[in-house]
């Protein structure tokens, strides 16, 4: 049972990472803010500004 719980936790963690939820949490922590539409928009702008500079795989 604990194995399945761990597996579900990992899958959820990967989905959160791919959906930028982990990065957003770190952004909120770093800026000492709580979630709000403005905070998300600021995160989105900063995060994608950096992300869209990175090379894309073929």
């Amino acid at each position, binding site marked *: 049972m604990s194995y399945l719980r761990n597996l579900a936790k990992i899958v959820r*963690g990967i989905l959160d990472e791919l959906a930028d939820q982990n990065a957003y949490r770190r*952004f909120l922590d770093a800026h000492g803010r709580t979630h*709000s539409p403005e905070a998300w*928009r600021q995160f989105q*702008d*900063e995060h994608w500004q950096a992300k*869209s500079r990175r*090379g894309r795989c*073929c």
Partner: protein
Amino acid sequence: MPRTIARIVWAAVALGAALSLGVVAQNQGESVNSTWLVIAAVCTYLIGYRFYAGFIAAKVMALDDRRATPSERLRDGHDFEPTNKWIVFGHHFAAIAGPGPLVGPTLAAQFGYLPGFLWIVVGCVLGGAVQDFVVLFCSIRRDGKSLGQMAREEIGKVGGFTALITVLLIMVILLAVIGLVVVNTLKGSPWGTFTIAATIPTAIFMGLYLRFWRPGKVLEASLIGFVLIMAGIFGGQMVSESPTLAPWFTFSGLTLCFALIIYGFFASALPVWLLLAPRDYLSTFVKLGVVVMLGVGIVFLRPELQMPPFTRFVDGTGPIFAGKIFPFCFITIACGAVSGFHALISSGTTPKLLARERNARGVGYGSMLLESFVAVMALVAAASLQPGVFFAVNSPAGIVGTTPAAAVATITNWGFPVSTTEMATLAQGVGEQSLFYRTGGAPSLALGMARIFVQTGGGQAFMAFWYHFAIMFEVLFILTTLDAGTRVGRFMLQDLLGHVSPKLGQTSWMPGMLATSAVVVAAWGYFLYQGVLDPLGGINSLWPLFGIANQLLAAVALCVGTTILIKMHGSKYMWITCAPLVWLVVVCFTAGWQKIFSPLPALGFLAQADLLAAGPQGPTTAALVFNARLDAAVTGVFLFLVALILIDSIRVWAGILGGSRPRTTTETPFIPTKLAEEL
């Protein structure tokens, strides 16, 4: 596990690999079940991971979990953050998985399934995965520096600058060739075109949803987006069956080419949150879902391979692309075995997230093994089609004949029987008017995937749905790379131009942004346009060009890796990166030389230009002659740039090994970790 049991288990795995490879290689004249390929691949990966990667990790890199990684030392809450190894694995795999490992192996199936399969597995275990692992390790030991920075610091300024230019040029060719795959997939297909067109408003809706209505709810928005694109597939069916609407979504290759160029410009210039970001989320989830579905489908359904192990086209007379099995099988497979682009990811976000040094083995080496397995699945899907159908879909009219009757006659004469009735029934079954001349690999892969999916759900009645689902997956995936790649190309160009005029380097300055977007789009758009005009289908010219470029970038990454290994251990372990480097250099330079100078017009760009110039002059002849010469020049530039890095690297290696150059390395000093436990 007790030592004896472990030895027995690993001996069984090794035996499994040897036995399956034996069955796959010895099978002549009758079809082979794909299970043998899956077992051979998985057992080889396990051996490679356990022993070869284990040896590199322990003896060569001396990975040490007591050493603090950049994610801990430079933790900033943004880029640098210690992260669970499985999450980093998922992140890294999603970042390295592009359309290449799906398209390359499909095209390489023209040689038969065996050469491609062997290279995908062996090339990955000894080359591609080693490259990804070594570059990741080098970056971790250097504060997460990029490949370009490491090239500059470890080899020299020439190496660093050349790496930057090489990446920019490769990006242009990559975007053109994947654009061509999209054009050849959607031309004359109202169903496919509508489905893909519907993804644009879907992505914009998701962008607005995430920005204004439900900020931060990415998984929720992605789920809605997925429902909408599925609705788009059903909508596409209705459009294709409507005599009024179908013509609105039926386009020629040239029209689609211009539509794609205009789309690329807007995708690069629009705010990132509106189109690129939501499409990227959606594409990532669909990509991972389909890869899992395909893997499960192949493992449970175990399709028989219809393609022979070798075809007559190993002699270089193939209809999809010209050139002999050596070097063109290796160039064509590209990312499924070795990908230079992975070095950019391995020295990008991933090293900034790894919490423990030893996780680099699973993430760097392991992710590439999984990517290679995706390539094996694509090869299985393509090789499970009847060879006659495979060649009818993938061969250009310029080779097999401009009418379906001529095409089937040519292909049947090659020894791969196929009839116009069979092709018509197949096209009707997937809701298309015709499946002839759809070069690029995507439609034949979609056919193979649909045949596998159809057995898992819905039966033959759902063949058309699964075909268009597979098309949607491939094109969505490719368009995301196209959007993002154009933007990356624009930033790289702005970085370069910023040295000439600081204003042009400002990414927030609208005229500069629009101008550089236009330049990048025009660059790949031109190559796309020439691919569409090409009577041989375009793939024959552009895919080898892309393959050569990608493998040359891998050569650059392996030069950096070799330099660092020499600085660490002298010549003792340099063979680990040097062996794949030598192979890639031989393959790429042979392929490049043949593409430029071969006297065969189907293969050599210059011979093709001379033949066209001497023949009857049509309205596009002058453009075709110029394009062939341009392709020759671009290939020459690639070879020259990499030769430059190679010579620079050899000079550095000789200096270090000869004692005339100090072994100075930029590796960061050991700092003990303070992370208490595994995340």
